[in-house]
């Protein structure tokens, strides 16, 4: 267990500076050398005063998920925070404003809801803010300062982070926020602590550790991989990918265009991919639904293109600011016909970076659309990561025209040993060819004979099969106990972090347990999954959808029986919930063994 393991939830209303306070906390603690995983929940409505929560887990050793219960809850708005008091663990702390501005009816103040086993810490946030800055709007900085002072967090790291955050604005803004922070810090330092929350020393860390969320890591991966053109249409939670690339890509000679809709975005991306540019788009489930027709064109025309998809609660407009993993079917199967494509699902922020870069390699190597499937939790989850930029992505893995025998007429869709055809870029001498969404022969000319369709369909499927062995990409990985185990977990996407933590805890309880992450959902590493299942008495598949889409996928492909564990709460999977299932299965196995022995 790590020396430091503190989870802090800051809860307020939109406009309270909740997310900003969480962001400063994350960056400051990462700057000080701690590991941080963070996730923000915010309202779907652009206007209004919806609930915001910034949740951060600060540790000295690497962890893989947020905890089910926080150690500290900071209330910037009791109206929202009261509902989250039960999420604070016993002997955890609740920090709140004890000098609100208006008269309250009984029960409207958070102190009425703090459980006997929790510890109340009140401070006059508004008054301290007004004293420090002549305004009440720095309450979030006061609260942050109090939190930092209470637990002896490094003040300097906060000062630097606050100053950095307001860089470029009037100096008085940064100074005011630092003063408000210091006012809170002094109060926190002087407070009599009754909880048992301890901040251990910061671990040694590589100097290049930075706080980053999944979407930012996607952008970093795109930049590192040499993305040249990006087309997008805003949609939560993928919008920030478009925004960040719009700011950065043109500076490196790339181009970004916000199109009129998602169909145009993928159409343009396929067009750019056809011309040989590294091209991508980003969207969410509803956008992907619109893109599926063009996606089919990409498959049929064998055009490299990358589509980043961040899932949210659905169907339809659904829950734009809540997380879910319910677009797996759409990503793997969506569209008309047998439209085989490659689908990657990173499991953490660093994985987003690697998958983004490798997606371009795969798209080129196998001449097909590649979907990188995230979800809101992973898109917005902040982690301290290091080593980004050290990964080198291949600049061009395309099997080019030089692979074609010079004396033969060029066939764009020639059947080869590895099913991948030499690809000519439009304008390349000797590479003239036809491309169409119609079924076609090896020349690319429309042809729909039974033999052609059978052959070309097989080509489009067979050519991507080796993708599961792509260099420097873990398409699956096993963790935990080796050999035969009682309970095995198979998880994908953001849920894998919770599955891994649950598995580690189960092992610490004496349960023989292992976990497998599956990053490549299409083509699926069938043999590896089958082999893993063979080692497990019981297999548990936790995922954030109702249908058990991944469980269906893997049982269909492998024939393995699994236990499904599905949640559609709009929130990340809880470690405790998975752990409960592991314990239940382990108990059943134990009982069976006793029965057999008897």
């Amino acid at each position, binding site marked *: 267990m790590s020396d430091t393991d503190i989870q802090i939830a800051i809860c307020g209303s939109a406009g309270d500076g909740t997310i900003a306070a969480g962001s400063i906390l994350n960056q400051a603690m990462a700057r000080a050398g701690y590991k941080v995983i963070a996730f923000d929940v915010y309202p779907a409505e652009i206007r209004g005063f919806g609930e915001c929560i910034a949740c951060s887990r600060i540790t000295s050793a690497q962890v893989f998920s947020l905890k089910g219960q926080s150690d500290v809850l900071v209330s910037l708005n009791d109206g929202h925070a009261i509902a989250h008091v039960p999420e604070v663990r016993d002997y955890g702390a609740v920090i709140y*404003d004890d*000098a609100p501005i208006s008269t*309250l009816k009984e029960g409207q103040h958070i*102190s*009425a809801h703090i459980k006997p*086993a929790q510890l*109340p*810490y009140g401070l006059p946030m508004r008054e301290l803010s007004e004293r420090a800055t002549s305004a009440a709007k720095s309450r979030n900085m006061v609260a942050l300062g109090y939190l930092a002072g209470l637990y002896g967090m490094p003040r300097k790291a906060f000062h630097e982070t606050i100053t950095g955050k307001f860089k470029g604005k009037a100096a008085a803004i940064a100074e005011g926020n630092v003063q408000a922070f210091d006012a809170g810090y002094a109060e926190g330092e002087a407070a009599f602590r*009754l909880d048992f929350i301890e901040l251990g020393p910061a671990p040694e860390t590589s100097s290049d550790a930075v706080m980053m969320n999944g979407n930012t890591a996607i952008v970093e991966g795109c930049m590192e991989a040499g993305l040249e053109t990006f087309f997008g249409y805003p949609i939560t939670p993928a919008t920030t990918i478009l925004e960040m690339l719009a700011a950065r890509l043109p500076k490196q000679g790339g181009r970004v265009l916000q199109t009129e809709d998602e169909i145009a975005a993928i159409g343009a991306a396929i067009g750019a991919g056809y011309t040989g540019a590294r091209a991508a788009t980003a969207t969410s489930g509803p956008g992907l639904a619109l893109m599926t027709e063009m996606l089919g064109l990409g498959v049929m025309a064998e055009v490299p293109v990358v589509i980043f998809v961040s899932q949210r609660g659905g169907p339809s407009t659904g829950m734009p600011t809540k997380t879910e993993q319910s677009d797996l079917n759409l990503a793997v199967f969506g569209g008309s016909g047998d439209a085989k494509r490659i689908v990657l699902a990173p499991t953490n922020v660093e994985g987003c970076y690697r998958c983004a870069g490798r997606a371009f390699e795969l798209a080129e190597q196998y001449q097909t659309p590649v979907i990188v499937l995230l979800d809101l939790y992973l898109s917005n989850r902040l982690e301290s990561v290091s080593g980004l930029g050290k990964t080198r992505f291949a600049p061009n893995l395309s099997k080019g025209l030089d692979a074609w025998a010079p004396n033969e007429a060029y066939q764009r869709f020639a059947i080869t040993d590895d099913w991948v055809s030499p690809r000519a870029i439009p304008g390349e001498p000797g590479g003239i060819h036809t491309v169409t969404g119609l079924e076609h022969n090896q020349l690319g000319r429309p042809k729909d004979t039974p033999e052609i369709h059978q052959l070309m369909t097989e080509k489009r499927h067979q050519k991507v099969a080796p993708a599961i062995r792509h260099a420097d990409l873990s398409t699956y990985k096993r963790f935990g106990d080796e050999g035969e185990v009682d309970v095995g977990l198979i998880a994908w996407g953001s849920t894998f972090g919770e599955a891994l933590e649950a598995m580690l805890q189960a092992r610490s309880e004496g349960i023989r347990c292992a976990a497998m992450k599956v990053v490549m959902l299409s083509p699926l590493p069938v043999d590896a999954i089958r082999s893993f299942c063979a080692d497990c008495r019981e297999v548990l598949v936790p995922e954030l959808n109702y249908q058990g889409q991944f469980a269906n996928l893997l049982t269909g492909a492998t024939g393995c029986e699994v236990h499904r564990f599905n949640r559609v709460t709009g929130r990340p999977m809880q470690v405790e919930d998975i752990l409960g299932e592991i314990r239940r299965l382990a108990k059943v196995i134990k009982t069976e063994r006793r029965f057999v022995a008897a």
Partner: protein
Amino acid sequence: MAAPAHHVIIGNGVAGNHAAWVLRARAPDDRITIITIGALLFYDRYQLPQVFRGKHDWRAYLVHPPSYYEQNRIAVRRKCRVTHVDAERRVLTLAHREEVKYDTLLIASGGGGYLPANLIEYRPLFHSFNTFRAAMATARALPEEGTVIMLGGDILGIDVAYNLVDTGHRVLLVPHEQSFWPHKVDPSERPQLFEALSGAGIEVVDEAPVERIEAGENGAPARRVVLADGRELTGDVIMPFYGLAPALEFIARSGVDIERGLLVNPELKSTDAHIWAAGDVCQIWSADENAYRFYYGWKNVKAMGELAARNMTGSEQPFQTFIDETLTVDRAGRLHSSFWDYD
């Protein structure tokens, strides 16, 4: 169907918590709320001297586990200071502007340490022992074998002094007319009692008024007490023990009768039909003495809390004390106060 009655108790000590227990037993469906300015649940203050023996985890002092309050549906509003009681509307206001309605109100807010007027300006230089936090602050300020200058020496202070001596500390006691409070000690008996204290290792200095108190700097002892006759005492902490003053500021404008404490009849009811009082905060009418008087000590306070709860739920029993308020010196030469007795 009428809403269940809401019984509010101000104070989280012996009286308040025993009242809550009786209320729950007698009114299973009613709401019960304890309001306290402290951050902790009900803890055993009589055990606080254990901080000098290294018992620093507050959980070890709790009388009930946290689950007790949930199981018995007793809400404990901690870190809440009552600023006003509106007896007419039956509403009390908390410092954070929250209004809480009550059907019956029990004032069991206890008392704070009394300070003579000439010492009030030195308050920042004092250490106290009335809460876990204060006890911990004292323990942390006091080095091993350190010296405590105890002013006054009421009976609570003398209990602390014994513990300090037993844990290897030096105690200098500056007597005062409040020494041994709330015991009424005849002046002729004081020398024998002080002798008993000396016998236990407590250094009793000759009585003299305190002239001034100073904080030490630059390596000097942390605290210095200058007496009116010119003598100087040095130590690490100064602890005043001059008896208790009822904590009643919040109810001063509510219309109930107050003298030094909140005045109640023998049934512990105040001059307001919905307000009762129990513990160190109240003065109870004594027909025998034809006066209102205080009753101290754990057993009295517990009995008052339980009685108030019964009377709040329909009984009309008068308070009777069975405690012999005696201060004796046992065969071993050690003082014994009946106020130190508790179950």
